[in-house]
């Protein structure tokens, strides 16, 4: 899914429905608009506002907020609630995200929808809790053990955070998969004027089985790669496990059953990259240099691009809204037309490698990096454009 734009978009204009809103607040409100009814989390900077807001909102809406004893328990409870039929999410930052990895793999393997919000801060380890970073991009893709697909979204404005958290819930229900929303400390704590009267919030409901219980197979591909999921307690008694399982959900060591399941698991995500992976392109058609950017770094990248255009440099921009699955085809296309690709990111070069791989040597790929908990400023990107 490629959205093409010409020129850059300015800040949202004030209107009757406009509000000054913080990034974390947008995420909490977007989640509720998406149908969130269960939220479990453990305190961590810089994600805290999401939990404190939801602890007020959810009980009033008949939903559940619970502060768990750690991040492992938080995601466990989220998966349990999702099996009970509720839309469920947790929010955390780097150290907590590390603790969640095993259960992310469980949710991917057992195909339980859930949303994990990771407000990135500088790491590794405790790092710099108050400094933004984009160091968890590869962890979001590969953090759990074993092979599995995943969907990871990355907003770059407060308004987009609101929209993408809704999209995250929708994708998690549509594809029966955990979806990770990667934001960062900058986006979490900044406030922007946001117009929230969105054209229409599309909310995807979970597909329920329509067959009688004795015909129900929670992992069957007979009706497509994403089988309907019955909630516990609704008359469909079945088994869920993190072990390799057959179409009924029971552990199996039969290689044909394992292969069938694993193939379907990948097919449902990687086979739908064009539908899932969103990118935004700005002025790439005549560009000989293209900035590939994502998240809050895209804000500086836009600015740098404008400045470069002002001095008649043919610079374009590609913003990855979906980081994973990676949009190989789009990057390869860019690499065919551009000579040089500049990848600014608040880490030591993570998406850079993906861009390099997808470019297949057709363009020079250069990183602009910073991983000390400070944002990349336009000037730093600009100097790479001029180099």
């Amino acid at each position, binding site marked *: 899914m490629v959205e093409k734009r010409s020129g850059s978009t300015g800040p949202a204009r004030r209107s009757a429905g406009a509000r000054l809103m913080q990034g974390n607040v947008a995420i909490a409100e977007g989640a509720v608009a998406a149908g969130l009814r269960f939220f479990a989390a453990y305190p961590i900077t810089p994600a805290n506002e999401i939990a404190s807001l939801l602890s007020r909102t959810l009980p009033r809406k008949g939903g*559940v907020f619970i502060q768990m004893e750690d991040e492992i328990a938080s995601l466990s409870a989220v*998966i*349990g609630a999702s099996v*009970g039929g509720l839309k469920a999410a947790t929010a955390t930052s780097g150290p907590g995200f590390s603790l969640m990895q095993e259960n992310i793999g469980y949710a991917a393997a057992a195909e339980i929808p859930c949303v994990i919000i990771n407000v990135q801060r500088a790491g590794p380890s405790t790092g710099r809790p108050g400094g933004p970073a984009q160091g968890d991009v590869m962890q979001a893709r590969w953090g759990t053990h074993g092979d599995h697909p995943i969907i990871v979204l990355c907003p770059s404005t407060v308004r987009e955070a609101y929209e993408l958290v809704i999209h995250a819930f929708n994708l998690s229900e549509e594809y029966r998969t955990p979806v990770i929303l990667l934001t960062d400390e900058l986006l979490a704590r900044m406030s922007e004027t946001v117009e929230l009267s969105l054209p229409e919030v599309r909310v995807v409901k979970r597909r329920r089985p329509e067959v009688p219980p004795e015909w129900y197979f929670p992992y069957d591909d007979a009706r497509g790669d994403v089988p309907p999921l019955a909630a516990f*307690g609704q008359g469909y008694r079945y088994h869920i*496990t993190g072990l390799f399982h057959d179409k009924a959900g029971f552990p199996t060591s039969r290689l044909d059953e394992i292969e069938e399941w694993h193939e379907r698991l990948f097919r449902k995500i990687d086979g739908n990259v064009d539908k899932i992976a969103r990118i935004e392109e700005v002025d790439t058609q005549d560009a000989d240099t293209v900035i590939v950017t994502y998240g809050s770094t895209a804000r500086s990248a836009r600015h740098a691009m404008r400045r470069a255009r002002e001095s008649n440099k043919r610079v374009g921009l590609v913003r990855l809204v979906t980081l994973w699955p990676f949009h190989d085809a789009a990057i390869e296309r860019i690499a065919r037309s551009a000579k040089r690709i500049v990848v600014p990111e608040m880490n030591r070069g993570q998406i850079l490698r993906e861009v390099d791989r997808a470019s297949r040597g057709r363009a020079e790929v250069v990183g602009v990096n910073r991983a000390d908990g400070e944002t990349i400023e336009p000037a730093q990107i600009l100097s790479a454009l001029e180099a």
Partner: protein
Amino acid sequence: MDTVVPEQEYLRPHKKFPSVWCPGCGIGIVMGAIIRAVRARQLAKDDIAMISGIGCAGRMPVYLDFNTMHTTHGRALAFATGLKLARPDMEIIVVMGDGDAMAIGGNHFIHAARRNIELTAIVVNNRIYGMTGGQVSPATPLGVRATTAPYGQIERPFDIARMAEAAGAAFVARSTTYHAIELDRFIARGMEKKGFAVVEVLTQCPVFWREPDQIGDPVAMLKWFRDNTTTDPDGVASGKILRGVIVDRELPGYVESYRTLMKTRRKRGGG
């Protein structure tokens, strides 16, 4: 379906047996006791969920015709907490081994007890790690030899029942696989309890338990449970393990408290 034994009604019909458990294992006795407790309470299978962690005991849900989930190691109670809050009217039984509940899942265990969440936790305590080959667990008694304590365990074990009591569980009982009928009653009482109920069951692992006079002999292990446990609190002084209902108290359950909170907040309105 013709049932050979009443328990069969609660077992899954297809391709599940023989079980993964070794001959002489005590987990089947615990499973039988759970089924009899469910029968005694006349609960519908649709309304029961069984959640387990990892290990030999964690395999139990495969065999039972409930809503079943085999989760990650140590996390069964945390998964069950989410499910219970989503489906407050379901009866949720959580099955864990001693390593699962007290080592990797120890934090979740004490916090489930502190919250007094309306779950029934069965701790199948064989006092070692069975599935991974007989390593010491937090319940291995002092001096007992194990795969990772070839010279005998030098750490003191947890008293699981007392841990549950101290952490705030509303109901705590302990029995053994020798006392199977008593066990049915304790599990049924635990399920009736509005709050966090813990039933610790001492069980035998005839494959990896290394006490010299019991190696490979499940009958010797069951007899040991008969001879070395007591329902008389005064008997504990002589080194015996206390069986019985250790705690049965009225405390507000978490789901009940949350429902009250929701009601009052909704009355006050607001979005």
